[in-house]
Structures are given as structure tokens and as C-alpha cells.
């Protein structure tokens, strides 16, 4: 658990005079499930976009999967998976077509693709729906599928931007089973969320407020530190302190 896959030192991101990320410092270790929490507008999506190479930082040193995000963006991108806030598959393509498209982008050979596709369909128990349009699937299925496609090329890290928006707690729980599976396979999971029950599932969480990281530790330690019963209370206490 000691290999660092994300290293962030003094990351600053400004939009004009507005500071979205104010000197962020944190590391994420291999195989860990890292929760990135914060209220809306706290700067977590901005930080995540920088880590994914979607946006350039104003200053600071950032390494993702061992590569520098300024100079080796291409290599960073090969080694990460990304699932956006909005559901990130093509609804007018079938499941198989989506898989084919995304494995094409990451250069997976057709032979590997077929083998992996079979495993994926079996795991999600959707073999019969292989040729149905993604748009016709229920939301819970779509999200599980989107996650499976995001890690289809076996990235070192997968970034999930509020992946479970709009689904019920049971479906969310099932989704998290997939996340644990991926983590067991050694894939690091970096997830933003504002559902506090989800925060409980993470190994470590960081809580952001107004562009700064206010707290970063395991969920156990945070609860002890803030004398709170659950993450929800931790979150509220931190939010009150910064106001």
C-alpha cells in the first residue's frame, strides 16, 4: 500500500482572480479508494479535471501514475480511466458497440476485447442485452456499465466524478461492490461524491472547502478527531468551522 500513484504538491488553479484550488497537497496510494469530498463549488471537480489532464494547473507539481501532468499528459491519459458526472456512454450505440469504440481508443486488440467483453457481460449479468441500445437500459445498469467500460483498459487509476448521482441507496451499494472489486484488482479509485454514506465506503477521504483541503485521513480517524458518529457529522462540523 505504499506505492504512490498520485502525488500533488502545492497545486494552485486560478480562474482570473478566483482561486479554485489553493495549494493542495496530498498523495494517493496504489489500490486505495480515495474519497474526494466537498460541497458544490468547493473545487473538487476542478482538481479532478487537472489530475485527468482535462485542464492545466496554474502552478504546482502533479504526478499521476508516475508521470508528470505537464510533460507526459499522453502517458497519464493512457493510464487512467474517467467516468464523468453525466453518464458517459453513448446511448444510441449498443453495449457491444460502446465497448468496441472505447477499446479502440485505448488500442485494445479485437481479440483481447472479445475475451474481456465476455467477462464483463458475465460479471454484470447482462449477456442477453449485448446488442441492446444503452439508452434502453435502466439507470443502475448504465452506471455499472459505464464504470466497467472506464476500467476496461485496466488503468492504474480510475477517476469517478459523482458517479452515483440520481440512484437509490441499494443501487448505489451494488455499484460500490464493483468499486471494491476493482480496488482488489489493484486499481486505485479516486471518487468525488457528496453522498456521505458513500464517504463511509472509502479508505481515506479528503474534505475540501473553499478551494482548500480542510481534512484528510481515514474515515475512522476523522470520526475520532471530530468526535462524530458518522461522516455526515464530520462534514457538517468542518463546514461550520470554515464559515
Amino acid at each position, binding site marked *: 500500500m505504499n506505492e504512490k500513484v498520485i502525488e500533488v504538491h502545492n497545486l494552485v488553479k486560478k480562474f482570473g482572480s478566483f482561486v479554485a484550488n489553493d495549494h493542495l497537497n496530498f498523495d494517493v496510494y496504489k489500490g486505495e479508494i480515495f474519497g474526494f469530498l466537498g460541497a458544490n463549488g468547493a473545487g473538487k471537480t476542478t482538481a479532478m479535471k487537472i489530475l485527468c489532464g482535462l485542464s492545466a494547473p496554474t502552478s504546482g507539481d502533479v504526478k499521476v501514475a508516475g508521470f508528470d501532468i505537464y510533460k507526459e499528459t499522453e502517458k497519464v491519459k493512457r493510464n487512467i480511466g474517467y467516468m464523468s458526472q*453525466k453518464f458517459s456512454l453513448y446511448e*444510441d*450505440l449498443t453495449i457491444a458497440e460502446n465497448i468496441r*469504440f472505447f477499446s*479502440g*481508443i485505448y*488500442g485494445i486488440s479485437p481479440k483481447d476485447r472479445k475475451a474481456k467483453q465476455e467477462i464483463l457481460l458475465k460479471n454484470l449479468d447482462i449477456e442477453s442485452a449485448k446488442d441492446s441500445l444503452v439508452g434502453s437500459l435502466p439507470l443502475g445498469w448504465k452506471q455499472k456499465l459505464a464504470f466497467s467500460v472506464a476500467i476496461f483498459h485496466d488503468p492504474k487509476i480510475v477517476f469517478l466524478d459523482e458517479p452515483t448521482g440520481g440512484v437509490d441507496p441499494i443501487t448505489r451499494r451494488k455499484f460500490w461492490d464493483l468499486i471494491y472489486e476493482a480496488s482488489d484488482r489493484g486499481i486505485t479509485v479516486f471518487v468525488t461524491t457528496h453522498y456521505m454514506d458513500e464517504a463511509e465506503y472509502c479508505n481515506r477521504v479528503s474534505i475540501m472547502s473553499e478551494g482548500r483541503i480542510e481534512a484528510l485521513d481515514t474515515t475512522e480517524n476523522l470520526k475520532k478527531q471530530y468526535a462524530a458518529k458518522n461522516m455526515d457529522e464530520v462534514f457538517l462540523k468542518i463546514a461550520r468551522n470554515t464559515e
Partner: protein
Amino acid sequence: MKQFIGFLRKEFLHIFRDPRTMIIIFGIPVVQLMLFGKVISTDIQNAKIAILDQSHDNITRKITSKLLSSGYFVLGEELLPGEDVESVFRQGKVKMVVTFGPEFEYNLERDGKADVQLLADASDPNTARILTNYASGIISDYVKKEKLQNIQLPDQINVEVRMLYNEGLKSVYMFVPGIMAMILMLISSMMTSISISKEKELGTMEVLLASPLKPIQIVLGKVTPYLLLSFINALTIILLGVFVFGVPIKGSFFLLMGESFLFILMALSLGILISTVAPNQMVAMFISLLGLMLPTILLSGFIFPIQNMPLPLRIVSNILPPRWFIVIIRNIMLKGTGIMYIWKETMVLIFMSFTFIALSIKNFKIRLE
């Protein structure tokens, strides 16, 4: 390259799966050409006229039959002397009344002069003008050919009119270039801007940008299918124009296709530019429709002559790409001119393409920051 082919396959799947896109790409061009070519034609056929013949002699009868056999007119009513001419107009039965004065033949033979009156319903001024022009043309033609041979007239100036490049004054000659410009704008600019902003709206653009694909590959991948489809459309419109409507291609076919290709490139870069500005599909569509389609129809010289516009509109028309493209196609197809005479317009299109591409790159970077 493999990545790129995979991307193209995906794009074509999007296009072929969406009935609305298919209709816009394959239905609209043909329907519009047919509409403009056949229905909304400014040519007049079978207009109803009334004849009021006060002489009923040989010549007036011959002239009447000439008029009616020309294809432009049909006899709606025969009026008797003294009948109220205005009431026929008010009832809307006819568009024009042709009145021959009394003793027409006699006057013509003796004095070389006779009276015909054309009364037209100018509540529709364009039609009225065209009808009277047709009718006076037919009448003077007849008189010149049939009658004046035997009569020696004092010196007079004969004005002879020939309509070069479109002898029959067919309006479809005017519509084919215009529709081509319009359709290519529609498909290239609107469809690309919609398809790119759709990815943004659905969140898949972020996934693509977070993948090893380079932004330029993404943009090229989105644009290439529309480049192909637009080119097929340009060909279809030209072929329909030539084989269905008989519009000639007097100049070089390759030059025509080359200029069309240039125009498509220009429109595609404009589409990319729109997509960098528009946050979602709706906005992209509105910008394309209101900002491009309407000005193209109204101000590009497609239907209304630019020379007749007030100065501010003439200035605006200069920044519309179709305005230049229409000049180019008319020159190549109807006049048969070569690049020597249209290089200025070509340069304008090239300049516009570069401007749009530069602006898109600038905007795209700002978005990524």
C-alpha cells in the same frame, strides 16, 4: 489510424441511427431543390388572361392565338366591348386583360400603327410586370415577323434583347447555386456544430478528452463524416440540377467540385467555431439556423439581388460566405468562366476558412484552461 477509423465508425452509427439527422442530410436537399425548382418558381405558366377584341380581324385573332399557344397564358374569359373590365379583376378571375382597339388590321396596314392595351393586376407587382413583358414581347415579335416584312417603315431603331447565360430566364438557374450554398451550410455547419455540442452536453466529450485521443483527432473525427456527406450532397444537387432541371455546367466540372470542396471546408470550420461557443445542442442549432440560414436565404443574393439592398445590408452580405460561393457557382455553371474570373471570391472563402479555424483553436484552448 485505427483509433481514427474506430471513431469514424462510431460517428456514422450516430448519424445512421438518428432519423432526424438522416432526414436533414438526405431528405432536405432533394425536397428543397424540388420545391424551389418546381413549386416556388418565379416563372409564370398558364396565367389566366381575358381578351377584349374590338376588331375581330385576322391579325388580332392571330395575335391572340400566339399568346395562348405560348404556354404562358390561358384564356380565362372573353370580354365584349363595353363590359366592365375592372370587375373581372376584382373577382380575381384573370391576371391580365388584353384589349385590341377597333379596326386593328386596317389601322396597321394603313398607318403602320395600331393600339393594344395590356391591363394587369398589379396587386402582385412582380407577376404583373412579368406578364406584361411576356405579352408585349410576343405581340411585337409577331408584328415584326409577320407584318412588317411587306411594309416599309421610316428609319427606326430596333432594340434587340438577348438574355445571355439564361436565355429562357429560368428561375431554376438561379435556385440551384443558391440551394447548394444553403444545403452545404446547413449540413456542414449546423450538423457538425450540433454533433460536437451534443458530446459536450452528454458529458462524453470529457471522457474523450481524458482518453489518449488528441483534441485534433476528436475534431477531425467529428468533422470527416460530414465532409463526406456534404460532398455527396453537393454532387446530388448538381446532378439533379443538370439532369432534372437542365441547368448547364458550362465551365470545368473539376473546378466546380474543387470550389464546392473549399466551401464545405469553410462551412465545417464555421461549424466547429459555433460548437466552441455553444454549450449545448439547442444553442448550436439556434445559432446555425438564425445566424446562418436566414441570412443565407435573404442576404446572400440567392433570391433577392444584392445590388438592390440598402447599404448596411450590402455590407452585411459581404461577410456571408454563401454570397461569394453563389457568385462562383453561377460563373462556373452558367457562364463557363475559369478560375481567372473568380479568384477573388475564392480568396475570400480561403481567408474565411483560415479565420474560422484560427478562432476555433483560440476558443478551444480557452475552454481547456
